[in-house]
């Protein structure tokens, strides 16, 4: 019913706002889109433009095919959850939920019906008469979500709603949010710098950097098929190994070793080799692409050990390669043989950073 569409959205010329260069994307009904990017990439600015808190310099915002670019926030029927929750401190929870509805002149009976159903979903019933100051962080967060839900909006906007919660609660609320918004029809736009949140919650992820869209895709494909070096480096933890290596014929030269290049239209003089640490494994005798290196750092992550090795590189600085190894895999010597499975290697253009074909 109410899809959200951004067309060539641009925000510049305002020193107080992080610029957005050119963003076009569509969020359909029932879709959950995450805007993922480092701080300063413009993701919050985009959200604020959708909400109407900022006016775009160029471009359009369409909610349900209605051009709302120049409508005030109150007339857009968009609900927003703020990072700081932004509950009205002088009103109790009930009045916080009711405030927006009263302004819309919705009859009192319907207001109380809606508040009742939302507070049942979120478990707010025992809190309705309390003021925000008397609530815990998690409860305030739920009230903030409730205030958005009760509006019955055409689009939901969430601005890093979990970042003020402690780690344990965050995981819990994240699961709750997923269930709540799965049950909603309206499109959801969720701003975060946390890739776990983006990947777990979303049906679509938009990775942003410097005010530009880097990749818009499903969480799966963002992870398995990063469109460029930035996405590859930003998504995934521990970070992907990104090695700048020269090429010779059909081989990339990684230190003293060679790795077969993917089938490329032409062989560039240099290329960026990307491989996730979890795909680098201990070499078996049958493996073809094996690198040998000295272990210089072992970080125990509990489920895995993150092992960093120095691969010899002639007379030059050794190349650093990181590998995520299961803790039961032991090695005894200081030197380690690691295999790079060809099918897990990503190749990126050295200049543009764009992904080159994968084998």
């Amino acid at each position, binding site marked *: 019913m109410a899809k959200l569409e951004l067309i060539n959205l641009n925000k510049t010329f305002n020193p107080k706002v992080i610029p957005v260069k050119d963003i076009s994307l569509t969020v359909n009904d029932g879709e959950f889109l995450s805007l993922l990017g480092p701080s300063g990439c413009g993701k919050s600015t985009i959200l*604020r433009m959708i*909400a*109407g*808190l900022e006016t775009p310099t160029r471009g359009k915002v369409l909610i349900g095919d209605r051009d709302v670019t120049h409508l*005030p*926030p*109150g*007339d857009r029927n*968009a*609900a*927003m959850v*703020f*990072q*700081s*929750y*932004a*509950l*009205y*401190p*002088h009103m109790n929870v009930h009045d916080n939920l009711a*405030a*927006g509805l009263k*302004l*819309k002149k919705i009859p009192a009976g319907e207001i109380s019906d809606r508040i009742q159903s939302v507070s049942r979903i979120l478990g707010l019933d025992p809190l309705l008469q309390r*003021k*925000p*100051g*008397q*609530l815990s*962080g998690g409860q*305030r967060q739920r009230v903030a979500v409730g*205030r958005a839900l009760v509006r019955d909006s055409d689009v939901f906007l969430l601005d890093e709603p979990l970042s*003020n919660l402690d780690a344990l609660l965050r995981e819990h609320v994240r699961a709750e949010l997923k269930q709540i918004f799965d049950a909603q029809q309206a499109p959801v736009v969720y701003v975060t710098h946390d890739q776990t949140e983006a990947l777990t919650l979303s049906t679509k992820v938009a990775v942003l950097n410097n005010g530009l869209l880097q990749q818009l895709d499903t969480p799966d494909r963002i992870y398995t098929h990063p469109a460029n070096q930035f996405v590859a480096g930003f998504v995934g933890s521990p970070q992907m190994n990104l090695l700048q290596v020269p090429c010779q014929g059909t081989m990339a030269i990684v230190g003293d070793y060679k790795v077969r290049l993917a089938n490329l239209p032409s062989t560039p003089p240099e290329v960026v080799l990307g491989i996730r640490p979890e795909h680098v494994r201990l070499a078996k005798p049958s493996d073809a692409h094996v690198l040998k290196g000295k272990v210089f750092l072992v970080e125990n992550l509990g489920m895995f050990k993150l092992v960093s090795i120095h691969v010899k590189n002639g007379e030059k600085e050794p190349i650093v390669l990181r590998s995520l190894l299961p803790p039961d895999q032991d090695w005894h010597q200081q030197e380690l043989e690691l295999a790079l499975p060809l099918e897990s290697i990503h190749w990126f253009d050295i200049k543009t950073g764009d992904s080159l074909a994968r084998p």
Partner: protein
Amino acid sequence: MSTTAPTHQPTTTKPSRPWLQTLLFWGAIGAIVVFSLAPILWQVLTSFKVNEDIAAIPNIYLPRRITFDHYIELFTRRPFLRYILNSFIVAFISTLACLAIGTPAAYALARLRPPGGKLIQLGILLITLFPSILLLQGLLEIIQATHLANNYLALIVPYTAMNLPLTILVMRSFFVQLPRDLEDAAKIDGYSTWQMLVHILTPLTLPALVTTGILTFIAAWNEFIFALTFITEETMKTIPVASAQIGGASVFEIPYGPIAAATVVGTIPLVILVLLFQQQIVQGLTAGAVKG
């Protein structure tokens, strides 16, 4: 012992410390109380003394005979109720006007960022440094030209103007420290800027409103020189002027009793006001607006 975790320091010198601290603390409080309240206490005592006791040498500190004559004289032989009413009207309207004009101005300066806002702020600060007595001559001319003499407006307008800078500066700093997300949330809920100011921001700034309001009220209530100059009609006079004009039968007689009574009568409304609103200043009203 109770202040720190157990340590290996010798405990022999420790017990004297809290004792000395307590003594100094209460000594300081006592000194401040005596310093601020002794003159007032003297006035109160004087107002209840009979004339012989007031003039007696050596001083009689505590009145042996209590009389209400001085108070009765204020309200029977002089229209003191009328003076109080005058003062109240002038101070109350000035305060309301000051808050009504100052609050939106402060909000504009804090959030809407008008061009030259910094310059305006500097100008406001400069005005607070300007001694108001220098305005007297000019204001008198204006009041003569506009025929406002012996009109409440002759006092209300200058009092409002004089107290506006302080109101704007205090309210501005309050608005600046209010979380911005709160206003964004209000905008999304559909509040217009004006509705937001009235329904969301004003309740949150109530402590600041009350504080600046009381300051304005006291300043207007106590103002003397404008009130003396612009108001000559007896029934329009304010308390400070009326109190100062209490005179004796001759130049040699100073009616200490009625003057003391007038001082007390003029102060009591302010004390009541402050006590009344102190309860209204709910602290920590903004707690819980954003993350604790």
